[in-house]
């Protein structure tokens, strides 16, 4: 029944080790995860042994820094089944999505064209499309979803609404729902509509293969994947990346520059102007290696076990409303307790050394749809334990009683 050795894993995370005594329970992993020692060591080692600017030097550290950086790109490419030259390093999922918006989508949307997305998106995968529609006279269209938060697109809608671009989440940071993106991508491909998948909440939980999915764009942040802050990935299909116009210009992205004219490099370098987050990207690759060592299958099964426990515990709370997919999902639990403000509960959980998120979770359109002003969210990761879940349940019960 045990897919991962959680005791061993907990020892590999300095944050968990340091908070052992204080018995802190960290259930805000959908916001950001902690980092294993392997990642901290990767950072320290880079600055101690390699540190140098990339792509420009012939000296030993310069070459070695470039090699490590490009190997990191290879590691990420392998992780999601892409070609190396299809991986762009960004500063996070928000940066990745905006890069697609500014360098590509902006140039293909004309008056009256539709961009299709959902009300379940994180603001980062919603606002950029809203802006393009505003500036280019396009229309932002919504995909409907059922009571399980599963989205449904029809060929009919795509045609009728003149959809020229689709942007959807792979897994929601509120509902935990794993969307059947493959089916939607297939439909999009049939009509030759480029499609972006926001994998921010998928990459640390599911095995991803972008070639198998056949999407045009896929993105995620490093910091939600046991990697450092300030790192992110954009996968862009070769045929699409060629059409990108750079939004950021500077060192490293031109082969020739003069007062009159400049000749650009090829992607991905074209899209990584300036000194990149060299150390961050290398450490992110080491986070990926850490995940691969544990095995995504094991992680998925282990987290399913944790999810089942959490559901059991939450069922015992009176007047609870879960906003959650009952089908395939990851260990995220968004909920409200009737008559009690989510913020009151989050505050008192914090007093009880349990960290959960409360608020609109950067998903205001969904909150409006659900007709709530926010909710609580407990989100688990590989280092969380059944004991913690039970403690969470007990504290929650006590707090609910206290507040009613």
């Amino acid at each position, binding site marked *: 029944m045990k897919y991962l050795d959680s005791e061993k894993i907990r020892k590999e995370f300095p944050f968990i080790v340091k908070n052992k005594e204080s018995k802190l329970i960290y259930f805000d992993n959908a916001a950001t995860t902690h980092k294993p020692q392997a990642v901290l060591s990767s950072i320290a080692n880079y600055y101690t042994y390699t540190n140098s600017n990339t792509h420009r030097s012939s000296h030993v550290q310069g070459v070695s820094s470039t090699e490590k950086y490009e190997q990191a790109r290879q590691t990420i490419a392998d992780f999601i089944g892409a070609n190396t030259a299809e991986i762009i390093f960004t500063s996070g999922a928000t940066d990745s999505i905006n890069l697609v918006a500014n360098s590509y989508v902006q140039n293909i949307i004309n008056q009256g064209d539709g961009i299709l997305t959902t009300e379940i998106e994180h603001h980062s995968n919603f606002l950029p499309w809203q802006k393009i529609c505003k500036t280019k006279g396009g229309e932002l269209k919504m995909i409907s979803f059922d009571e399980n938060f599963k989205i449904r697109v029809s060929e009919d809608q795509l045609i009728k609404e003149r959809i020229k671009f689709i942007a959807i989440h792979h897994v929601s940071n509120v509902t935990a729902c794993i969307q059947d993106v493959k089916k939607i991508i297939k439909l999009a491909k049939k009509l030759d509509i480029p499609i972006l998948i926001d994998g921010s909440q998928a990459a640390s939980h599911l095995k991803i293969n972008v070639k198998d999915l056949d999407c045009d764009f896929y993105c995620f942040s490093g910091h939600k994947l046991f990697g450092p802050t300030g790192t992110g990935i954009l996968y862009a299909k070769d045929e699409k990346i060629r059409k990108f116009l750079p939004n950021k210009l500077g060192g490293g992205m031109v082969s020739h520059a003069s007062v009159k004219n400049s000749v650009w490099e090829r992607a991905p370098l074209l899209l990584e102007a300036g000194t990149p987050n060299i150390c961050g990207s290398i450490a992110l690759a080491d986070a990926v290696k850490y995940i691969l060592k544990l095995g995504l299958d094991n992680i998925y099964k282990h987290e399913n076990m944790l999810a089942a426990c959490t559901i059991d515990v939450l069922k015992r709370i009176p007047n609870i409303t879960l906003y959650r997919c009952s089908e395939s999902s990851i260990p995220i639990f968004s909920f409200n307790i009737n008559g*009690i*403000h*989510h*913020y*009151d509960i*989050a*505050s*008192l959980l914090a*007093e*009880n050394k349990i960290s959960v998120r*409360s*608020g*609109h979770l950067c998903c205001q359109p969904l909150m409006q749809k659900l007709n709530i*002003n*926010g909710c609580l969210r407990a989100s688990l990761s590989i280092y969380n334990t059944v004991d913690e879940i039970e403690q969470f349940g007990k504290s929650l019960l006590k707090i609910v009683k*206290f*507040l009613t």
Partner: protein
Amino acid sequence: MHKGLKEIVDSFLLFDSWEEKYEYIIDLGRELDPLNKGLRTDANLIVGCQSKVWLYCEEKNNKCFFYGDSDALITKGLVALIIKVFSGLDKDEIVNFDKAFFEKIGLRSKLSMTRSNGLNLMLQKIINFAKK
């Protein structure tokens, strides 16, 4: 430190558990004068990420008076506490108010530079009002 403040600090020092502390805070909220419906407007709303705070500022006879509300129990209690602290002071007293007070009663984190609960913004609004 005016007498009301001293009283508050003393109360906080007595609490052994979070239950006691928050019972006190929530009770403060219950005792808060209800905000005039006409003042519960968007103009008086301070938008934080998590709970709503309304705050109305008024000057009478060189003293400042504050009226407020919140949709969350604990926040409402904290709004009441802040109003208790600042209402009735003159502008100089508000501007020079020693914020270590909030530290003393263990609420520093609730009032810090986060946008999460609007309390920091509330404090800023009070101080800005006093600076005008």
